């Protein structure tokens, strides 16, 4: 009998991973450090993290549960806290997690290399394979299992990190998932006020506004939810208009699902022109108003 050991933080993550774990092993054990999750695994543990501790430090308990339960394959959710727990368990096992896995076939895991520049296949060299998955790889609704959830006491490590505060991030009004059209802004926008040109175009197209990663975290012109790419949102609108975006793989893997990709860039050699359907070489400051007017 093979066994899968699932480490999750969110409820949806737990259900997705448990559904995936069923395909990889006969028996599924779940450890959750967020909400208790029932009906997803054959054995379900919940660790209630005290208010003054961080969930990452639940590794002492998680590793103890692993010692008691075992597992031939470990599936971890790709949130920062769960990644900490996965890393601590992998270190103890002399293993290393293969992360960002999109498929596992016969012990070989597929994931991206250099953010989509390559596709990598890799397998665990040791006895226990450790994988982590982003959201959406497995179908949460397929998870089945016991309704009983066992509480496992949080045991603080030596030198525990103290949590002194926590603030929920403001909800974002970005909605890229269902959008038919998206106008995405890149570093070609030299000044924040120029974004108005993109907003005008988006209004004309009935499009949502998105961006490349640097516009959401180098400067904070956009919320994090608005950046498209390997580490951001993956979108599939009918039309994706990339403006002032060079077209590096880390960005393009996020919009390759679009039916039509449109690019505006002042550099005729920008890689984005090799990955688009319709391209226009020119300064966005003149091209965008003209395009908006012509639509």
């Amino acid at each position, binding site marked *: 009998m093979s066994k899968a050991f699932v480490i999750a933080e969110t409820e949806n993550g737990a259900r997705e991973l448990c559904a995936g774990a069923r395909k990889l092993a006969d028996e599924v054990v779940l450890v959750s450090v967020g909400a208790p999750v029932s009906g997803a695994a054959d054995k379900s543990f919940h660790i209630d993290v005290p208010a003054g501790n*961080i969930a*990452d*430090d639940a590794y002492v308990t998680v590793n103890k549960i692993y010692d008691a339960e075992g597992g031939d394959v470990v599936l971890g959710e790709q*949130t*920062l806290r769960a*990644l*900490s727990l*996965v*890393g601590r368990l*992998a*270190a103890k096992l*002399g*293993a*290393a*997690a293969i*992360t960002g896995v999109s498929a596992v076939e016969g012990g070989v895991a597929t994931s*991206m*290399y*250099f953010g989509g*520049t*390559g*596709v*990598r*296949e*890799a*397998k*665990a*060299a*040791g006895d226990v394979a450790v994988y982590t998955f982003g959201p959406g790889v497995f179908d949460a609704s397929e998870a089945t299992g016991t309704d009983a959830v066992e509480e496992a006491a949080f045991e603080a*490590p030596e030198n525990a*990190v*103290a*949590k*002194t*505060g*926590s*603030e*929920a991030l403001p909800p974002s009004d970005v909605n890229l998932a269902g959008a038919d059209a998206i106008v995405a802004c890149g570093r070609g926008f030299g000044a924040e006020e120029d974004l108005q040109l993109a907003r005008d175009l988006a209004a004309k*197209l009935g499009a949502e506004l998105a961006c490349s990663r640097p516009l959401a*975290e*180098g400067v*904070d012109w956009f919320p994090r939810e608005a950046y498209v790419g390997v580490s951001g949102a993956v979108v599939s609108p*009918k039309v994706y208009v990339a403006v002032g975006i060079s077209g*590096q*793989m880390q960005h393009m*893997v996020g919009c390759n699902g679009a039916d*039509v*990709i*449109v690019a505006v860039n002042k550099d005729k050699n920008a890689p984005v*022109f*090799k990955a*688009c*359907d*319709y*391209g*226009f*070489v020119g300064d966005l400051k003149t091209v965008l108003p003209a*395009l908006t007017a*012509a*639509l």
Partner: protein
Amino acid sequence: MNILVACKIVPDDQDVKVAGDGSLDFSRAHKVVSTYDLNAIEAAAQIAAANDGSTVKAISVGPKKADDSKTKKNILARGVDELFLAADDALDGLDAFATAAELAKLAAKAGDWDVIVTGDGSADLYAKQTGVQLAAKLGVPFVSGVVSAEAADGKLVAKRLLESEEETVEVPLPAVVSVAPEFAEPRIAGMKDILAAGKKPMNVEGAEGAPAKAVEEVSVKAPAEVDRKKEMFDDVDAFAAAVKAAL
């Protein structure tokens, strides 16, 4: 405060060629510092600047080609005082477990340290695992997603940006912290900094042996190409008509 910063030297993915068999050819790619490790170096330099008498030493593990004069100077031109680099083809393409073991050896050679700063994730693997593996190896605390940090008597008061909340934590030192790119934008190193960097101590060594692999690479291939029309326009009206038709 004595700060170590772990930075990975990787091939520039802009220089990668696709070989005839669909595999990726990195052989002619320039070596660069992994993108978000530049932010980690800047974070380390800023923490040092805020605490008088601090030092910043960089630690890095990579193949022989990582021993590249321009790249080493690029690291040392960013507020780093000294570099410890293990460059050996036996150390190429290591997984997080093996990398952490090698980094721990370098940390021991770099002398006393209070905190090891790592980047958000490496440009090639983007696993976000090396920092926590290193912390486990060294038996110290670990936090990730750090966007600000202040030193305060034996600990670091830090803010972490997580998926749906911002957490404030006190991390007892010594510790490993992984910083988010938001912590600090990398500086642009000037000519003077680069010249000065050439005079800073660079400790480069080979491997003591090939570390055991926890992960075996089976293949790396170029992704399947998405078919696109690649139609270029120079008339805005025709361009607008094409965009409209696609909606």
